[in-house]
């Protein structure tokens, strides 16, 4: 068993026009940079992208958006992207906005074989329109359905050859749950080791969820909002 493929181009070779993709990351943090670049280069179009955000103009998913490769976004917040705004006004981009907790839980449900569940988020809001509402213990909840994808593109920190993955700090975000919810999960990692090279207690994504793996390279890791504090004398 060796899930390591040659490179990003090979890894995305069978992603066809019209595919439904989950793409990990929160803003630009934890994006699968190498896979996104390969997807852009491949020129595949008409994609449905399930991702928390839409990147910015020149980074992350924003690059696919700018190239007109995306037909529909399922996201929770898309505020940082002018091209997003432009495509929406043109009518060339469809968007489904989902509360972030519901979005995360729908993805987890997709991976966990739970076709639907009840959540309190969104009751009494425009999100509730057309959805079943039911009371439990006197409180109203909405019925929400799972999300699944053809491919998930995942950014890990370290991986072993069997596809076991760890993440780094808040770059973890949606990556582990998206890994569970696609027919084919493709992961890129900053470092790839042999099985046994990761602490079994600290593996976040078991290899069972990963079908293909690449060794990532040349990570840019852009920062959206660089906030700092001044060093006091003596610190």
């Amino acid at each position, binding site marked *: 068993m060796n899930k390591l493929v040659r490179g990003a181009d090979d890894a995305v070779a069978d992603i066809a026009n019209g595919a439904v993709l989950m793409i990990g990351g929160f803003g630009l943090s934890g994006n699968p940079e190498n896979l996104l670049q390969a997807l852009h280069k491949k020129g595949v179009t008409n994609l449905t992208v399930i991702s928390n955000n839409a990147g910015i103009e020149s980074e992350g998913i924003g690059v696919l958006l700018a190239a007109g490769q995306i037909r529909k976004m399922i996201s929770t917040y898309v505020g940082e992207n002018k091209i997003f705004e432009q495509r929406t006004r043109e009518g060339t981009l469809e968007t489904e906005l989902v509360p*972030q907790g519901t979005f995360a839980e729908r993805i987890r449900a997709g991976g966990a074989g739970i076709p639907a569940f009840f959540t309190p988020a969104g009751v009494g809001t425009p999100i509730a329109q057309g959805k079943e509402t039911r009371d439990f213990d006197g409180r109203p909840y909405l019925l929400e359905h799972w999300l699944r994808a053809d491919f998930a593109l995942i950014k890990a920190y370290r991986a072993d050859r069997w596809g076991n993955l760890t993440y780094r700090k*808040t770059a973890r975000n949606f990556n582990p749950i998206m890994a569970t919810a696609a027919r084919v999960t493709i992961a890129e990692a900053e470092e790839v080791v042999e099985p046994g090279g990761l602490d079994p207690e600290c593996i976040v994504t078991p290899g069972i969820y990963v079908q293909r793996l690449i060794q990532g390279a040349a990570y840019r890791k852009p920062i959206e*909002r660089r906030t*700092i*504090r001044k060093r006091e004398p003596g610190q």
Partner: protein
Amino acid sequence: MKDQDKRMLIARRVARELRDGYYVNLGIGLPTLVSNLVPPGIEVVLQSENGMLGVGPYPYEGEEDADLINAGKETVSEIPGCCYFNSADSFAMIRGGHIDMAVMGAMEVDERGNIANWMVPGKLIKGMGGAMDLVAGARCLYVAMEHTTHDGGPKILKQCRLPLTGLAAVNFIVTEMGFMRLTPQGILLEEIAPGLSFEQVQAATEATLLRSPHLREMPA
């Protein structure tokens, strides 16, 4: 009062609500100011819904890490005892009622505790992010906002006019004019900013305010 002074006044008042051992989610903007105002001698753990407990202050220059951001996408730091988890686990924590206190801004709040803070019809909709889940899940929701709009219009209404973020979700409203508690009877003014009369606060509010029998001055 200058905007910045109002914001600091509000943030300081919210910070007085913190208790040792609280797990707190602070929204983007004004609520973030609260993180620098934790009273001495208590330990508070900040949650960031992108998957972290134990958010520390902004990093020192040169120590920014693209893999370490808060839900506002700002670079942050770690405190000892912090930990990381995925987004589904993060919202399980929020939805499951484990966050002691969430603080967020609002465009409108009404007498029933309804809150609207995510969309204005006709304007491009950017998305609700985690607001609907926080509003539905936090054990105690504080709205921290300026009392009126920039052109002086009321934000505390009889009934919200904008599409809602959540129903009957708000527990407390903190503005530069006072500290208010949502009760089954309506909005109870418990503290009032120095120098203001009840009538002045009511005049800036569309909702009918209830006057607490123990109405006192809001501590600075």
